[in-house]
């Protein structure tokens, strides 16, 4: 007989262009993490087409459940709970995961735990090492760029966010100008490492007294530079363009994060989200954290930066312990957001 009961979460993630189902043990161990990515399909269109994404999710969903259970070598009887991303994301995509998770929870009489996708990105860190609180997370992804303060494990408070484009979105847009198909983040990152910051693009809001970001000015400056050069038939170095763009992004992210750490001393800084895979950003934060003696940097491993259900299970186990439950009426919430830090607490 197994004396120590295992907590097993079956988790679902379908917020964008990945269909993913995972089994997580005790909130921090991946028993399986099946990710079916649609990138190849959407590359035909240069970006994610929502109706196409929904159609792919429904093709994949039950096959992913079977694979996740088989790889984890568990049955429904072993499970403790079912966790699912219910927002933010594309509504039609979210609904496939939400409906499937509700069906599984009902069929096997399991509790259903609703998970915020961004809480998932942050909790991916837990799959490597326990998170220590208070903690700060820099969440940088395709749709979000925000600094999230976590006084306790189930409290997520925004202290700053992008006022326009998300960092990943900016990468994808300037990537297009360089002739790089979506998702452009990784190739631009690689190009950047072969060039130098020669263009000195603007660092928007860098010296403002807040923790907010803006990337649309940088994006426009980049596009204008390239278009102007095209008009006068001047060839610019793609490597230097990428390096200059990346340096501007990394500077602003690192500066604001440092300022946030000064105002909110924390035990851990977590770098999470798709753009957390960025080599330049990882290197820079690793360097900067040295001056914060009491703060450890937790870089979400590359394999868990993009969307996956393992991170949803990691957050789901924590939320389950705090009593988060959904019933069969659970709907997708495409615009779901964390609360801002309450003013009086500032």
């Amino acid at each position, binding site marked *: 007989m197994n004396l120590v009961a295992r907590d097993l979460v079956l988790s679902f993630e379908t917020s964008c262009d990945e269909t993913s189902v995972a089994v997580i043990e005790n909130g921090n161990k991946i028993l399986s993490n099946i990710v*079916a990515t649609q990138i190849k399909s959407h590359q*035909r269109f240069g970006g994610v087409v929502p109706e196409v994404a929904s159609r792919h999710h429904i093709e994949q969903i*039950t096959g992913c459940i079977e694979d996740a259970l088989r790889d984890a070598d568990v049955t429904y009887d072993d499970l403790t709970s079912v966790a699912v991303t219910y927002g933010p994301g594309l509504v039609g995509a979210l*609904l496939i995961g939400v*409906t499937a998770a509700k069906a599984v929870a009902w069929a096997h009489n399991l509790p259903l735990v609703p998970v915020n996708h961004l809480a998932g990105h942050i909790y991916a860190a837990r799959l490597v090492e326990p998170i220590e609180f208070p903690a700060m997370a820099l969440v940088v992804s395709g749709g979000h760029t925000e600094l999230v303060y976590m006084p306790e494990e189930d409290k997520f408070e925004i202290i700053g966010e992008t006022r326009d484009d998300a960092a990943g979105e900016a990468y994808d847009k300037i990537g297009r100008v360089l002739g790089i198909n979506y998702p452009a983040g990784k190739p631009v990152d690689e190009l950047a490492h072969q060039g130098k910051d020669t263009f000195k693009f603007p660092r928007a809001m860098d010296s403002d007294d807040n923790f907010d970001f803006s990337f649309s000015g940088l994006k426009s400056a980049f596009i204008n530079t390239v278009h102007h050069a095209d008009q006068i038939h001047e060839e610019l170095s793609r490597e230097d363009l990428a390096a200059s763009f990346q340096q501007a992004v990394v500077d602003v992210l690192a500066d604001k994060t440092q300022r946030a750490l000064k105002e909110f001393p924390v035990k851990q800084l977590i770098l999470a989200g798709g753009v957390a895979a960025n080599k330049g950003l990882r290197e820079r934060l690793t360097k900067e954290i040295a001056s914060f003696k009491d703060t450890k940097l937790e870089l979400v491993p590359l394999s868990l930066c993009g969307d996956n259900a393992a991170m949803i299970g990691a957050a789901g186990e924590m939320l389950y312990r705090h009593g988060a439950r959904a019933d*069969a009426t659970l709907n997708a919430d495409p615009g779901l957001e964390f609360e801002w830090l309450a003013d009086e607490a500032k």
Partner: protein
Amino acid sequence: MKILAIDTSNKPLSVAVMDNDQLLAQTTLTTHRKHAEFLMPVIEDLVKKADLTPTDLDRVVVADGPGSYTGIRMAVTAAKTIANTLGIELVTVSSLLNLALNVQRADVLINPIFDGRNQNMFTGLYRWNHGTIETVIEDQHISLGKWLPAISDYEQPILIIGDTASFEDDMRNVLHSRLLTANPLMGIPSAALLGQYGLAKSPVEDVDAVVPRYLRLTKAEADWKKLHPNEDTHNYVEKV
């Protein structure tokens, strides 16, 4: 055999629980298009009211389209996941055929219609033959202008049901007295009839492969296909 039958193809939602062809419980709602919120609670409630538990079910029958893309996805996602997770059978039935089941008469051709916007329709043509319903013209997404010539040569009267309002006048101009209309309640799907019909059908072999019967590519895919007529459209999704 205990059957769960689901149709959320358009605005109405209809769910039934059957014991073979006996109806145990049924709910049909036409008030909201909130299938994401209502479908699973209705299923939960009906199975309970039928004094069953999920594991008592033997088969799921789903109207898999055509219809509203989100609507047919809700029904098909719920149906294929329930079938897969409980290890039970899944039967898929055309949503247009399910509507045609409301008209149990052999003297007409039954023409169920879902509005496809801009004078387009999702439609097909059905008839009863010695107690079984038969397809006369396959379900398709078609403009009214093309559908009319396709159905105008039949001798039998044509009875339209479903989203008939925006098509009826134009159809009467061509079909005259051969066009029949029905009680609007016949335009609302019945999950009990769906379950009964699904009882006699053979289940799908591969539940994982079931997808809704959209009958239409997305605009992005249609445009892309025009530019790449010979490209293999499989294997766009990869497990990594």
